Each structure stands twice: as structure tokens, then as C-alpha cells.
């Protein structure tokens, strides 16, 4: 994904492609899952969905001017007013819950406002039970070429524990329906560390997922986040959390199994068949620019990190782009350097040290030599040629590594 560039970035990490990623958030869900702490809400009212889609379209247009300025110089040279975009990701919530027409309207606005490259990766998250072949046909015809399916598990017990609305067969149908209309680039999300799942259950989930021949599989551990119904249940003693040892055992089982099946773990939680890595998500870990639209969406462009408001009412009644913004943070050089390292280390290929040096004009070893050597000594990092990456143990204790690169 990353191309070595001789050009020195004016500030921060030079974008690998120079093109933008767009993230569009659809917060609505049929029902909020027990473990979910994302920006989402149980709103089924089509009028609200419609009003929301219009706001997103407004925001897509309103941000265009700001985004035109962040294109890398070589695109600027094309004298093209519309910013160039090579990935679009519609996430949620449950984007597949709202009418396909709203999604295609939003995508139309993307295409007319931005210069989306011919080979762009356009993803939508879908949840089994909210889509059918017809919906996929509409998606495909509006340019969507990748879906990310919230399968989570194929076990009745786990799906019930998580509070999902679907059954295993819905996931199977969902994948088949997408394929039927020609969407071949399919990712499945799985959750491990669910109480009662056990090692056996997890292996079955992995096998079931692999049998659907997706191109990409994400594996997430169940996190008991404060403020969720799951957390309340846990505090009441409703269930026992899976031990750290079992959690890690499941992770490494998955890593091995997926490798056997031809999937390469390319990031802490993401695996893909060669060439099928999520180009959009890679932007997050590679300090490439992306712009977020919709409720609670985050952006990183032009040296700024921004977040939109997470209040639905505030978003819907916003009269300007700035009304939608919750906060803006101007990244300092040290912000960029530490993000480059700790985000980059999420990728199993790690970071390229020469790239760090050329991006920032600072020597990595001079800045971080002491902590890096200590982490290597602790068996958490390894150096291989120009690359610095997490070891297998480092994957388990990644935060202990990342912490060291957060500058004071």
C-alpha cells in the first residue's frame, strides 16, 4: 500500500496516494447491541433517516472547499477543484437499515462533489437481517464494490448473548445475496471472548466464516465498555468475563487458523487475502487524510483532527458545517510523530524507519532509541531491515508499546 516517496512532506506524514478517504456515518439501528458503545441509536423513523441523509449531503458539499486545499501538490497540479477520493466507507450504526435510496442519494452526492477514482474502494457495512438481494443490487449499481458484514458469530448462544437481531442463516444468505449481484469483495466481522463461547465455539465460528470464502475477516475481542447494558449486567454479576489467558489463546488460534486458510493478519484485528486489505482502514494507520461525515464522525486532513457532534438533534438542526463540529485539534509535529508510530505499529508490517525520518526530518533512533531498545529487550518489538514491528507477544501487549511513543 505504501509507496516510498522521495518527496519530503511539507508537514507530517506524506500521504501514500495523496487521495482522500471518505467516511460516512449512519447511526441508525434496528436495536442497539448489548455491548455497543458506538455512536448509534434505535431510530426507525424514515423521515429522520431522510432528514439525516440530507444533512450528510449538505456536509459533503460544505466540506469540499476545505478538503480541496489538502490535496497533495501533484493533484493540485491537475488544476482540479474537486478533491480526489479513492476510498469511501459507509459505516454505522447499521447503514443497511435505512432505505437503499438514501444510500444511493448520498453516494450520488459523493460522486458529483468529489473526484472519485475509477478504482476506488467503496464499502458499506451491512448487518444480516437488514438486507436482501434487491438492496444489494441497488448498492452495486451505485458503485458499492465491497461490503463488511456484521456476522459476529454463527452460534445461537453467542448471538443471543451479544443481543444481535440475526441468526447464522441470515449471515449466510447475506453473503450469497451480495455475491449474486456481483459484490465479491466481502469482509466478515467476528467477535471472540464471548462468555460461553469457549475455544471450540470460536473455532467453529472461524470455520463457518472461512467456509463462506470472504476476502477479509476482522476479529474483535468482546470489550465490556462502561455505560453499555452488557457492563451493567457484568457489574450485577450476570456473567463471568473471559480470562485474559483464554482471550489471548483465542486470538492466537484465530491468527494460525486464518493463515492456514490463506488470510494474512495485516493489522491487530484484521486479516485479508493478499491484495484484499481494507484500503480505507489502512489510511487510518498510515496517516493518510480522511474526512468523516455524519454523527460523531472523525476526520484527519490538513494537519487537523476533527470530530463531529455526537448529538443527533444538534446534527440535524445544524445550520452550518461549524455547527456540526464538536472539536478541532491542530496536530503538532510531536502529535504527528507519535501517531505515525503507534498507529503504524498496528500493522503487522510495522513502520518503515526511513520513512519516519524523511517525513519528519528527525532521526527515529535519536528520538525513540531508548524506549525502542527497551521494548525490543522485553520481546515486544522486533527490527527487520528498515521495518520496526510488533512481535507475537507485542500483539498481545500492544498498548504497553504504544504508550512509550506518546510524547509528553
Amino acid at each position: 500500500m505504501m509507496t516510498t516517496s522521495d518527496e519530503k512532506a511539507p508537514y507530517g506524514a506524506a500521504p501514500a496516494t495523496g487521495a482522500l478517504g471518505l467516511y460516512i456515518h449512519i447511526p441508525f439501528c434496528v436495536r442497539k447491541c448489548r455491548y455497543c458503545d458506538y455512536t448509534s441509536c434505535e431510530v426507525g423513523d424514515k423521515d429522520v433517516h431522510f432528514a439525516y441523509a440530507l444533512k450528510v449531503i449538505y456536509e459533503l458539499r460544505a466540506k469540499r472547499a476545505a478538503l480541496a486545499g489538502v490535496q497533495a501538490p501533484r493533484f493540485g497540479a491537475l488544476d482540479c477543484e474537486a478533491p480526489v477520493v479513492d476510498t469511501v466507507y459507509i459505516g454505522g450504526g447499521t447503514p443497511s437499515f435505512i432505505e437503499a435510496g438514501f444510500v444511493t442519494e448520498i453516494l450520488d452526492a459523493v460522486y458529483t462533489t468529489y473526484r472519485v477514482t475509477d478504482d476506488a474502494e467503496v464499502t458499506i457495512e451491512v448487518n444480516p437481517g437488514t438486507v436482501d438481494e434487491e438492496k444489494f443490487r441497488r448498492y452495486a449499481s451505485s458503485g458499492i464494490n465491497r461490503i463488511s458484514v456484521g456476522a459476529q458469530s454463527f452460534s445461537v448462544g453467542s448471538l443471543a448473548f451479544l443481543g444481535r437481531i440475526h441468526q447464522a442463516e441470515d449471515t449466510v444468505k447475506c453473503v450469497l445475496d451480495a455475491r449474486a449481484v456481483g459484490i465479491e469483495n466481502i469482509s466478515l466481522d467476528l467477535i471472540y471472548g464471548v462468555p460461553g463461547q469457549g475455544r471450540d465455539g470460536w473455532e467453529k465460528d472461524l470455520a463457518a466464516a472461512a467456509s463462506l470464502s470472504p476476502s477479509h475477516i476482522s476479529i474483535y475481542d468482546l470489550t465490556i465498555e462502561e455505560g453499555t447494558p452488557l457492563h451493567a449486567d457484568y457489574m450485577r454479576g450476570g456473567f463471568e468475563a473471559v480470562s485474559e489467558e483464554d482471550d489471548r489463546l483465542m486470538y492466537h488460534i484465530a491468527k494460525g487458523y486464518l493463515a492456514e486458510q490463506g488470510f494474512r493478519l495485516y493489522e491487530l484485528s484484521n486479516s485479508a487475502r493478499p491484495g484484499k486489505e481494507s484500503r480505507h482502514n489502512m489510511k487510518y494507520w498510515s496517516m493518510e487524510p480522511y474526512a468523516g461525515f455524519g454523527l460523531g464522525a472523525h476526520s484527519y486532513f490538513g494537519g487537523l483532527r476533527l470530530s463531529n457532534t455526537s448529538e443527533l438533534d444538534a446534527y440535524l438542526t445544524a445550520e452550518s458545517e461549524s455547527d456540526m463540529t464538536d472539536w478541532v485539534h491542530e496536530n503538532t509535529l510531536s502529535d504527528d510523530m507519535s501517531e505515525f508510530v503507534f498507529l503504524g505499529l498496528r500493522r503487522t508490517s510495522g513502520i518503515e524507519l526511513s520513512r519516519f525520518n524523511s517525513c519528519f526530518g528527525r532521526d527515529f533512533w535519536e528520538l525513540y532509541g531508548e524506549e525502542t531498545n527497551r521494548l525490543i529487550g522485553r520481546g515486544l518489538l522486533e527490527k527487520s531491515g528498515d521495518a520496526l514491528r510488533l512481535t507475537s507477544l507485542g500483539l498481545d501487549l500492544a498498548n504497553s508499546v504504544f504508550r512509550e511513543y506518546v510524547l509528553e
Partner: protein
Amino acid sequence: MAKQDRIRNFSIIAHIDHGKSTLADRILEYTGTVANRDMREQFLDNMDLERERGITIKLQTSRLHYKADDGEDYVLNLIDTPGHVDFTYEVSRSLAACEGAVLVVDATQGVEAQTLANVYLAMNEDLEIVPVLNKIDLASAEPDRVKDEIEDLIGIDTEGAPLISAKEGLGIRDVLEAVVKHVPAPAGNADGRLKALIFDSYYDNYKGVVIYARIFDGSVRRGDMIRLMSTDRDYEVTEVGWYAPGPVEAKSLSAGEVGYIAASIKQVADARVGDTVTLADTPADAPLKGYKKAQPMVYCGIFPADGEKYEAVKDAIEKLQVNDAAFQFEPETSTALGYGFRCGFLGLLHMEIIVERLEREFDLSIITTSPSVIYEVYMKDGRMELIHNPSNLPEPDDMDHVEEPIVKADIMLPKEYVGSIMDLCQDRRGVMLHMEYVTENRVLLHYELPLNEVIYDFFDALKSKTRGYGSLDYEFIRYQQSKIVKLDILLNKEQVDAFSMLVHESKAYSRGKFVTEKLKDIIPRHQFEVPVQASIGQKVIARSTVKAYRKDVIAKCYGGDITRKKKLLEKQKEGKKRMRQFGSVEVPQEAFTAVLKYDDNK
């Protein structure tokens, strides 16, 4: 110069929180010494810390003018006394400067342990005691019952004792009338040779040490050469005067008066409380009785925390000592904590106050180690060594025996808590001398307790077990032979000297267990297992284990929300910065104080 028979020198004594400082404020206000609008609450307690804790540490004194009912103008010298067990000697010297004491008793609470302790001190100085019942505005006030208590326990007449509310300013004049009527005018010969008692001193940047003194005989004025009798050193007086409550320079001070003397003395330690001031060319033949050098009873190590400069701590400690003769220090080196100081205090409260002042007034970040008393270690070769630092305890083979300080403790409490406090005292190796019913509902326990059991957390335990109603007073009585051992703490098999402590053999196991359990909870998990052990010599007597973490990763990084993740990492890193590295083990600085704290659930 005031007429001697129109002078009244008095203190106010009370149990903590019974309203001493509030009454002092009202008296200043009533006599117009401090205008109402300038009145800060509790004028005499001028350190923030004192105000917060509601106790007086450094006393201040004030000269008041009062026109009594008999039509005469009186000069009243109000001598404030420090209000805590640690400062008993200072209290006794303040009282020695007076002829009378106003005894304030909370009409809702009655007589408490410190009420009695203070009354006994006053009686030792032959003071006239003027009882006053405070807080009579409260619905729960029971003045009659409390009067009976005072008569029964203290044996003084409460007939006509003023019933007041210092808070509301009720009955203040009654108190002043009682002082004028009952407290005798000072005796003493103004023409005799100078004899003045130092009852306090403080350091002033311009004047040097300023002595608070009561003149018993003779007089003193600017230009006199004075002599401090305990050191036999002479100084030229640069100024005399009194506080009202700001300094007012005077021509002279003479017999019966109370005021200040400045004589370019460099250190507070040179003008010690209890010493006698006389004139160099016509010295008194004998000093006033009762001089005692302040002796630290409790020691602990004070070290700069990570990132704090040794020099900054040293400067601050030196500054505090200039003003506090009872506070002593010497350099100390710890393998765990580096360069620091071994500091001596009068007691636990004194220690806490100094530590808090270092942290707050000087904005320092410091680590304190386990407090220790002074042990007398008798060696096989006949020598005796004073040991207050666990690291200096000689090898067991070289020691013949060890003696530890014992205190006499008076504990007053509601009778329903007697059982649990007797358990507590027994647990702390106490020996009960006797027990008396003060009233139907309240009990006074007399115990002998090893001081080293009192200094850890006894007071917190007492307060906790009696819901705050128990009160304590103690004084040193003697040294006594005891089986003292050195308890070491090892983290990951390496001894951390800053955690070492000297304990009685019978307490080593429970103390060791407590500390290892506490450290298990407070030391964060590492990449490897950390054994925490307590040992005596080579023998491990208690252990716990900080389990290794197997997982420290956030799988999700959703929708490009980097910031939330980064903030979490920053917070974790911030936490790590406050850690102290011992070998490969990181220990939070709170660990050092946490192992000393009383734990209800223990």
C-alpha cells in the same frame, strides 16, 4: 507600662473542636483589638493548614484592653496554646506564662481526653481555672449535665460559669468579667533582676528570631544585653513590644507583662521554648523551672519524588527548621529512593504537618517512609545505640537487647465502644492500667502502649472504631525491653529498603501480611509475575503475587477515532510517570503512604 494589678494573663484550653479558636476570635472582636471587618475567622490560627484542620500549631498571643464592670481598665494578655498531644510541652510553657486558664467545654460533648490533659497541665502550673460552657445555642446542649461532669471529673466549682456561644458571640463579656474577677494579677518584682520565660519564638526575615516572653521579675528594654540561660549566650535587644495582634513597639516590658523581644538571634533553635531570659550584666541567680529541650519522638525518611530536586527539598526543610526547633533532620541515603533526609518530629501530627507544608507551601513532591520511634539498642560489648532508622539496626548477633519507648495513653470514649477499643489496644500490645466511668455513658481508659504501635495508625483506628467520638492523649513514660525485629520487603526478590520497618516480633507476621497484600493491590501488573515478600533476615514470613498481565491491547480503532485511543494512552503514560522503578518493578509513589494507612477491612 501597665499597672501590675490591672494585668491578667490567661490562656484558653479546650479539647479539639470545642471552640477555643472561635472564642479567641470573639474576644479580639469584642475588645476592639481586631475590627469586625478585618476579622478573618479564627484570627489566631494564622496558618492555612491550621485553619483547615481547625487546630492551632504555632501559637500567637495578643494584648487586649478591657474596661470591666468595676470601671477599671485592664490589660488582658491572651496567650493562645497549641491544641494537640504532640505539643504538650509547648502548651505547658504557654500555661506557665499565665495566672489563669479559661477552660472551654462543649456543652453538647462534655469533657474529653484532651480537656483533662490540658486541665492537668494547667493545674501543674497552679493556674486559676475559669470554666466556660460553649455551644449552648445548639439544641443538643446539656449545660447541667456537662457542669456536673466538670465538677465530678475535675473538681472545680462551676457555679456561675459563663454559658456562651462563641459562634453567635453570646456571653463573651461574661467570660472577660470572669477572667478579671477570678484570675489573679501577676506577682513579681519589677525592680528585681530580669527573669523572663520564653514560651514561643518565630523567625522574622528582618528582625531575626522574635521571642515571645512573659516577664516574671525585672524589666527589659531596647539596648539591653540579654542572656539566654540554657546556652549562656548574650544578645543585644533591638526591639521590645507586644502584639495587638500586630506588633506594637514598646519602651520596655516589665514584671507581669507579656510581649516580644527581638535581639538578632539567628535561629529559633537558639531561643528555645522554656528557656529563661535574663540580663547579661545583672543575671538572675537561677533560671525559671521547667526548661526541657524539645526531643523528637518519631522519625521518618523524606525523599524527593521522581523529578523533584534534592536541593529544593533541602532548602524547604531548612526553612521550616528555622522556625521549628522541635523539627530535626539529617541527610539519609536509600538504595531505593536515593538521597533524602531522616527527619525527627514530636509526634505523628507534627510529622503530618511538616509533610503537608512541604507539599503545599513549597509545592514539593516527596515520598515519606515508615515512621519509626527511637529504640535503645544495647550491644553485647556494653555500648548503647539510639536507632530510629531500620537500615541502621545492628546485626542480631551483635545486639544484647533492644528497648522501646512506652507511653501512658488516656482514651476517652462512649461506653458502647469500650470493647472494640480494648481489642484494639490489646492488638497494639497495650496493657490496661485501669478504667473509670467518667459519667454513666463515658469511659476513660488508661493504658500503657508501646509508642511504635501508636504511631502507625492507632489514631485513625480509634477514630474509625468510635465513629469519631474517641479521643486520645498520651505522654512518654519509659523505655522497656522488647523483642524488636527488622521487617524487610522484597519486590521480585530484591529488597526495597524504603519499605523496611522495625516491629515487635509478635506483630511481624500480621504487619508483613498487611503490607504484602496492600502492595499486591497497588503495584500495577507487569509483563512478568512480581512476587512481593516480607522477610525477617533470610526468612520469608508473608508473600503475595502481582499477577502478570497477558493482554494489553485495544482491538478496535473505529471510524478513524484516533483521539480517544491516544488520550487513553496518554493517561496511562501519565500514570507511569508517577512510578518509581525498583529493579524491573514499577511502584506507584502512593505505595509508600498506602502501606502505613489504617485499613478498616483489615
